[in-house]
């Protein structure tokens, strides 16, 4: 059940980042959130970009010490194995890998199935895409 975002309708409130950091870090700090909402203002107006993990598994494939795994639904990082080489950060195509103060890789684990960002998004812009059913149609589409 990967995360999905309707980017065009995001209002940029960052409640998702606040919920993420509050839940995982015990304090509010959008810099430490596992997803990132960035604002850019230019002559064409306000542009909002969101980077988040879609569980593509590229970090799993490239991790040199097998510290990262996919448990079927989300990514797990074993900090006892992580050596902080940042290969995952460099190869992530979505800029969704973060490093915490201990120099260890931090990747979204979907809050183990109940993502707080989804729960707190006031406009339903972040959601979990259901896995495809046997008939090939997504359950929520």
């Amino acid at each position, binding site marked *: 059940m990967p995360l999905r975002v309707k980017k065009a309708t995001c209002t940029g409130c*960052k409640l998702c980042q606040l*919920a993420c950091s*509050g839940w995982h870090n015990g304090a509010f700090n959008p*810099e430490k959130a596992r997803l990132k909402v960035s604002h850019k203002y230019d002559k064409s107006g306000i542009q909002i970009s969101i980077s988040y993990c879609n569980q593509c598994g590229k970090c799993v494939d490239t991790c040199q010490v097998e510290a990262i795994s996919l448990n079927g639904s989300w990514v797990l990082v074993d900090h006892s194995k992580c050596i902080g080489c940042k290969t995952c950060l460099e190869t992530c195509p979505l800029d969704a890998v973060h490093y915490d103060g201990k120099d260890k890789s931090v990747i979204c684990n979907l809050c183990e199935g109940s993502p707080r960002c989804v729960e707190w998004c006031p406009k339903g812009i972040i959601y979990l895409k259901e896995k495809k059913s046997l008939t090939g149609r997504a359950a929520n589409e």
Partner: protein
Amino acid sequence: MSSFLGKMLNVDLTTGKIETTIIPREWARQYTGQKGLGARILMDSFDPLIDPLSPENKIVLTASVMAGTIVSSSAKLAISTKSPQTGTITDGSIGGHFGAELKYAGFDAICISGKADNLSCLYLDPEKAEILPVSDLKGVGTFETEIRIKKLVGDSQAKVLANGPAGENRVPFSCISTERYRQLGRGGIGAVMGSKNLKAIAVRGWLEVEVPDMEECLRVVKEIHETDGVIDPENEIYTDGTPILVDFCQESGLLPTANFQEGTFDSFENVNTAAMKEIRQAKKACYSCAIACGNYLKGKQHEVEGPEYETIALCGPNLRNDSKDRIVEINALCDDLGLDTISTGSVLAYMMEMTEKGLYDFGIRFGDTEKAVNIVRHIAFKEGLGAEAAMGVRALSEKYGGQEMAMHVKGMELPGYDPRGSWGMGISYATAPRGGCHMTAYAIEAEAWGDLDPFTYEGKAKLVCDLQNAQFAKFSMGVCDFWPISSETLARLYSVTFGGDWTGTEVDFIGERIFNLQRVFNVMAGFDHTDDRLPGRLHNENLKAGPPKDVPMPYESMTVSLDEYYQIRGWDSQGRPTPEKLKDLQIEDVFIDQYRAYIELS
């Protein structure tokens, strides 16, 4: 652990000295943050009689205690100073992300005094604070200033407060902008920044904001978000935003039209929410705001976040302008040049009426929107007719006459609600500390749009007092006006962020304390009951359509109501808080002693 950090950055632009000082935790208990804390910091060792544009004036930026937390709509930043427009204390709040970013940089407040030798930008982050020369930004609009400041500090995610050319040139109704789409409009804070050679303030933060018990905080805030309307997809502030008020005000007959000569506008449907939605591109939110009131519009040639209702009213019907594209254009110009759209619309309307009535020929009549745009372009640089308009309606009417039609209180031009259609709004305008302001008590909701008779003063003095106290507490806690939150709910939110076990009664008491503190400032700046007056037109002319049609709003009844207001407030007959009242409100002895000495001498 608490979301109040207790730290302030003190900046003296004259000497270049920058230091961090401690804000006593007691101040956050007494005044909370934002507006209240701003007044307290401003008044610390401050002479209310100073020239607002002198280096001695201070600019105090205060985040709310809840800024940076997950509480919706709680991150608005307040800026307090002595206003060059009115001579009163003034504060304004600005949305966007600056307030939260200041907390992530490790500060609740910044206090700026002095005057820099050259045009400067103050930058701070958790590791440094510095004054950067930006002489190349002289005369540059706020939009471009913001982009260039972000490049200068090398961080696209830095948050910037940008002053426009109007502020640089000390136009008394100059505003400042952040993130292109939010403004701190009223009171002339841009001019105070201009007088200090301060072009911009930028902040970047990456520190944590803590709360006493995260699990409890998330549980309580989530419950309140779900039950208090902020995530309701049908919330009209989200679906429409403030333009929805055009229809309400038209129906109530209090939509300012042709410089408040009328209260209804035949072409209102060309500029109402339905019309604005036709050119809406997107919805935008301020930091942590689940409501998302912001409308991003694209006119034929200009784009803007807005226009908000006040801009529509003052730059639309009040000029007999029924073109939404022109409103968008004036709005975009004002934002970029750094002009308050309310005051700008009002001064244009005054010039139009003076010309039409043959009292003075400013060469512009109602509906001349092309000429209006041309004047707006010149106000910021004080050129030609723009130099006249830049004086504001009070000074302009003192020079050319027509004071009956100069629509201001204490020098601040009136916003978009004609009090003849909602008499409590008149008391609200007359007693608002910063002058003609609609934010301190929105009595219209209880009157024209509620159950109370809008055309009587009976019970209105008490209504306005109660609303003002609640609003001052709400704003001081940093919550946006667009969340109609109760004091009890505020108390719960303050408990899970600041800490403690607060009650709604305590919250209202804080609001009353802050309101009185601001009145103390104004009294010591030379104001009394004779300044709590509305423009003559509102008492001497009746509206000709809608519910207020032919209902006179006599001056004498209003003064009786104001006497009642002072009595309820515990003030003397001259509208001055008594030292005993200040003692009851637990305002510190140091203020009371100074104040007692002042009123005994005067």
